[in-house]
């Protein structure tokens, strides 16, 4: 029994770690989306967090929790600075501007000296334990769940539904948007810090457009109506490559196909409580009526 577990764990621990980190990232995207912001900057914030945390453990040799905290705070501070002008934009324009921001961050990291330039940082100490990820993911979930039911969560929902109406109701739209943006950046940054401390090496190419798209994909695939969706999306898209690894060269094509199918046929993602409830009710009603065809 334990032998089985050991061999499973040694083969798949990176997959499990990856799923946990991606779930946090997907939740950070969920947070911005729940406030109606289509931001693609979270991959860049993840990168900033990863670099900040790794530099602290590598150069200064400070304890891991401090590094992770910095991994959250640095991107949050940057998000605060760039958020004020950027969040005036909405919809597709915001998506494109944040995409631009990500690209600029990549080029800056690529050209700085202390970030290791194109080589990135190597030999990051492996400090991330499984329970770190579980704890921080649980903390994120708890925080977001509490927020959903609070004044802040309702303000987000109002802004998402209709910005103008929300402003007329006296909601400080700019402040709440900024809050969602900054908090999303902090979560993504911590996830980046966790990620850097088990992958051993990070580079400027790890946090570009593809990653931004991957994160968005996970979130939307899972569903953005509630907190289960993003986590489930990260899990399924993390497990799929392991199950279908015999597809090898065409694995990505398969991923793309799944993405298209989900968007076309499950517009609210795979975790869609309303659809499921409707499905079970139909089922129950059909059972009560008895077989129709007979």
């Amino acid at each position, binding site marked *: 029994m334990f032998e089985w577990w050991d061999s499973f764990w040694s083969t798949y621990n990176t997959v499990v770690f990856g799923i946990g980190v991606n779930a946090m990232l997907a939740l950070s995207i969920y947070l911005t989306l729940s406030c109606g912001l*289509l931001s693609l900057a979270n991959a860049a914030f993840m990168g900033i967090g990863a670099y900040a945390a790794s530099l602290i453990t590598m150069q200064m040799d400070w304890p891991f929790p401090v590094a992770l905290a910095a991994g959250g705070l640095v991107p949050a501070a940057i998000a605060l600075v760039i958020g004020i*002008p*950027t969040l*005036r*934009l909405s*919809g*597709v*324009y915001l*998506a*494109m*501007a944040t*995409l*631009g*921001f*990500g*690209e*600029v961050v*990549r*080029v*800056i990291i*690529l*050209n700085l000296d202390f970030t290791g330039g194109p080589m990135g940082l190597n030999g990051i100490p492996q400090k991330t334990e499984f329970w770190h990820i579980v704890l921080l993911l649980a903390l994120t979930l708890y925080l977001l769940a509490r927020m959903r039911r609070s004044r802040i969560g309702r303000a987000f929902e109002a802004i998402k539904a209709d910005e*103008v109406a929300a*402003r*007329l109701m006296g909601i400080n739209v700019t402040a709440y948007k900024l809050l969602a943006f900054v908090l999303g950046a902090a979560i993504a940054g911590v996830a980046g810090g966790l990620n850097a401390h088990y992958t051993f090496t990070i580079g400027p190419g790890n946090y570009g*457009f*593809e990653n931004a*798209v991957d994160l*968005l*994909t996970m979130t*939307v695939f899972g569903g953005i109506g509630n907190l289960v969706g993003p986590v489930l999306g990260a899990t399924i898209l993390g497990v799929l490559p392991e199950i279908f690894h015999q597809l090898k*060269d*065409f*694995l*990505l*094509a398969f*991923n*793309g*196909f*799944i*993405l*298209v199918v989900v*968007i*076309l046929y499950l*517009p609210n993602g795979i975790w869609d409580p309303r659809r499921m409830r409707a499905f079970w009710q139909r089922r129950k009603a059909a059972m009560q009526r008895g077989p129709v065809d007979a």
Partner: protein
Amino acid sequence: MLEQQLINALCLGSVYALFALGFTLVFGILGVINLSHGAIFMLGSYTALLLVDKFALPLWLALLVAMLVSGLIGLIVDFIVLKPLRARNAPHLAPMIATIGVAIMLTNLAQGLFGAENKRFPQGTVPEDSINWGNVQVTTLQIAIVVISFALMLVLLVAMKRTQLGRALRAIAESPKAAYLLGINVEGLFYLTSFAAAALGGAAGVLIGLSFNAISPFMGQPMLHKGIAVIILGGMGDIRGALIGGLFLGFAEVLSVAYISSDVRDGVAFGLLFLILLIRPSGMFGKVMERKA
């Protein structure tokens, strides 16, 4: 030296403009960001290569067929992916992500079919002669690229401004519902737009493939980024804006590589984009569209 750089910039910029034109056309009329445009651009390039290499077609004919093929791919993508989303009035995010899925599929399929390595047009099929003016060297290929790009863009601009079809398209861009009530075949024109946009993207693919003489399954992604930057620079859905934005980006890139460093090349497009969005949120020529309370 500057003259030479300006000519290279014009050549690059005109292809950027051509690519972005298809992109902006789809956004202007369908109201959709089609992120599979880069993949279609890449497939256009491969089609031309295949035709020249395997069937020994002359380049101009290969270009035409490649446009047709990429147009058809665009049409299929529209029919399978965009049409159902239109039908249910899906929010912006849905077509964006669905077309990302399409782009991933097409790129991966191309990689499986043609291999991941760079392919080149066979020796002797790409014209290599050039004209010299003093210390400036212009290749026939560069002239052809600029002429073809501008000719295609001109055709589109005139069609949009002067023909009944163009008027119908502009009516749809204004409001699909009103256009429908006026008896315009909206769905048919959506298909036509997708076809034309993809054909332009394919043409840009052939021209870029010829000018760098390197075709790979991954050439679509960086081009897509530039296309995004261009249509934002020029104002989304604005045809003139895409033209000027494309040329502007070409000049900005070539000059920054020449006078600053080649490392910044990829950052230029998005750095500019980021700045412009902050100063003018709807691009250089875009109209500000905001719902006022």
